[in-house]
């Protein structure tokens, strides 16, 4: 096995015992990118060794990391895969980047994503789609599809993504890797280009649960540059990596196993429940009665916040500027409108318009305010279940990776593919996706575990126990 197919914790062991050097690790990743990324297209930018390397003197965690194109790195073009931000080189580091640099991380490159994280397939990128390393005719999921494909395709050891409605977990499931959305406020959003500020979280995409615990330990923590960051101590997450779920009570929401779920996904999740039962966890059927309203609520709340956050792209301070040839309204308004029409892709326009509609005078109460109220009901559903359960177990996505182009012309059917992941963002709770098998076509399936706010340790404990008793996290795609 090539060194770039190993996990970060395995590589750290090799470096410690001088069996490998950070340089060799980085080179093996770069060789892989050179060999396969032309087809996979996980990256939109690949750096030379200079970015980030060696900043800490004797780096304790010199692991090659891939960064989603919506996290600011000083001097590195960061565009959210949108034409409107082409050429934008941030003059500052996101807090997670500052922390990674301090840890000695080696920045491999910037990964592809749906424009402004609007999508579930990485097809809405101004750089073109990413392909799933397991089957290149299929999407890697999204919006962090580039990060998930890079890790699955051995083009990075681990990666950062962002998750507003499932954008870390769903691509992790589609690509057969681990993806964690931390509790809202666990990781600083400073320097993450905003999509929906009350839902966005940065999180790790890794090859196993141990790596997810390690990487979260590096990036988590209070940050006074983010007023929504929580002043809660960061535990040593590696202590939660124990092969033992005895005494844990896990809820299975009945609303998650109804119409629309692929029988093979259902079967894989049922088998995972059996594994954890044998390990000593207690299971119970629970109800999240407002599940059927989650997608509608999300597409009100998230688009309203997005339309407001994206108002800043006005062609004045950075990015694209276009001026129409003929005057329509006034030179300034014409510039705004022409810039935004040329700079935003179809899905971005759709969401800005939807959000603007639900915030507009006469519709605010019926849409936006109503969405916020239903959000309360969805959050209460989880509060009720967590009064008697330590965790909830569900599929990550209702299907395996779909074909490129399959849902491209039907935005609503694309939105519906987020049905299992959206509620964690609306409620602010942490959730992880771990590989739990393959379909007959050889496509990865993901198992989602959810827990109370700031109970990431419970996710790691259950995920780690599951891994120790199953082979899925060791499967590597051959490229």
């Amino acid at each position: 096995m090539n060194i770039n197919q190993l996990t970060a914790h395995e590589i750290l062991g090799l470096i410690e015992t001088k069996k490998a050097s950070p340089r060799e690790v980085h080179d093996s990743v770069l060789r892989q990118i050179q060999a396969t990324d032309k087809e996979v297209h996980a990256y939109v930018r690949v750096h030379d060794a200079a970015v980030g390397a060696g900043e800490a003197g004797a780096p304790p965690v010199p692991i090659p990391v891939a960064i989603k194109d919506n996290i600011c790195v000083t001097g590195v073009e960061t565009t959210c895969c949108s034409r409107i931000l082409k050429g934008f080189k941030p003059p500052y580091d996101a807090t997670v980047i500052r922390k990674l640099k301090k840890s000695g991380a080696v920045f491999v490159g910037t990964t592809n994503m749906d424009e402004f994280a609007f999508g579930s397939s990485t097809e809405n990128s101004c750089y073109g789609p990413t392909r799933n390393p397991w089957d290149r005719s299929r999407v890697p999921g999204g919006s962090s599809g580039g990060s998930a494909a890079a890790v699955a395709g051995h083009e990075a050891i681990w990666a950062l993504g962002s998750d507003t409605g499932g954008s870390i977990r769903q691509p992790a499931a589609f690509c057969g890797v681990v993806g964690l959305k931390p509790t809202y406020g666990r990781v600083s959003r400073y320097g993450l280009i905003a999509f929906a500020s009350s839902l966005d979280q940065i999180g790790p995409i890794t090859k196993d649960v141990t790596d997810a615990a390690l990487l979260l330990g590096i990036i988590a923590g209070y940050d006074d540059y983010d007023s929504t960051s929580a002043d809660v101590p960061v535990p040593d997450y590696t202590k939660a990596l124990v092969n033992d779920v005895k005494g844990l009570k896990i809820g299975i929401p009945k609303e998650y196993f109804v119409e629309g779920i692929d029988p093979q996904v259902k079967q894989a999740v049922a088998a995972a429940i059996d594994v954890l039962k044998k390990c000593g966890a207690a299971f119970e059927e629970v109800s999240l009665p407002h599940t059927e309203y989650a997608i509608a609520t999300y597409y009100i709340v998230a688009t309203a916040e997005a339309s407001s956050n994206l108002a800043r792209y006005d062609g004045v301070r950075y990015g694209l500027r276009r001026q129409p040839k003929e005057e329509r309204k006034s030179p300034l308004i014409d510039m705004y409108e022409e810039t935004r029409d040329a700079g935003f892709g179809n899905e971005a326009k759709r969401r800005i318009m939807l959000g603007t509609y639900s915030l507009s005078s006469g519709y605010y109460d019926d849409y936006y305010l109503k969405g916020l109220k239903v959000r309360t009901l969805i959050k209460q559903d989880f509060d009720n279940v967590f009064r008697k359960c330590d965790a909830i177990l569900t599929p990550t996505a209702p299907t395996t990776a779909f074909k490129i182009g399959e849902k491209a012309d039907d935005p609503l059917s694309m939105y519906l593919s987020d049905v299992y992941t959206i509620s964690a963002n609306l409620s602010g709770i942490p959730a992880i996706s771990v590989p739990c098998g393959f379909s007959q076509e050889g496509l990865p399936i993901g198992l989602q575990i959810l827990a109370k706010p700031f109970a990431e340790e419970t996710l790691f404990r259950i995920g780690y126990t599951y891994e120790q008793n199953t082979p899925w996290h060791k499967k590597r795609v051959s490229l």
Partner: protein
Amino acid sequence: MTKIAKNITKEDVQYIASLSRVHLQGDEVERLTKDLENILGYVHKLEKLDVRAVEPTSHVLPIHSVYREDEVRPSLQQAQATALAVEAHNGFFKVPKVI
């Protein structure tokens, strides 16, 4: 119970586009009219819920009014801030004629 069912017309889409500061071209108006109608049609399922007695949640954490000490910190310099601008002049951002 409020009633939110309403058809989306091309005029609505033009109006929202103008609020959104997007100039739509070609078949964009037609396409967006259809898309918004489908998506809002789906969203209308929320009508079934009576939420009159429910408090809205705009933010999940119990964090309010975050303050910090009023200390001077390093921040972006004018030259850095204007360096990325499409057009800047003497440390200012330049925009098309306003009046």
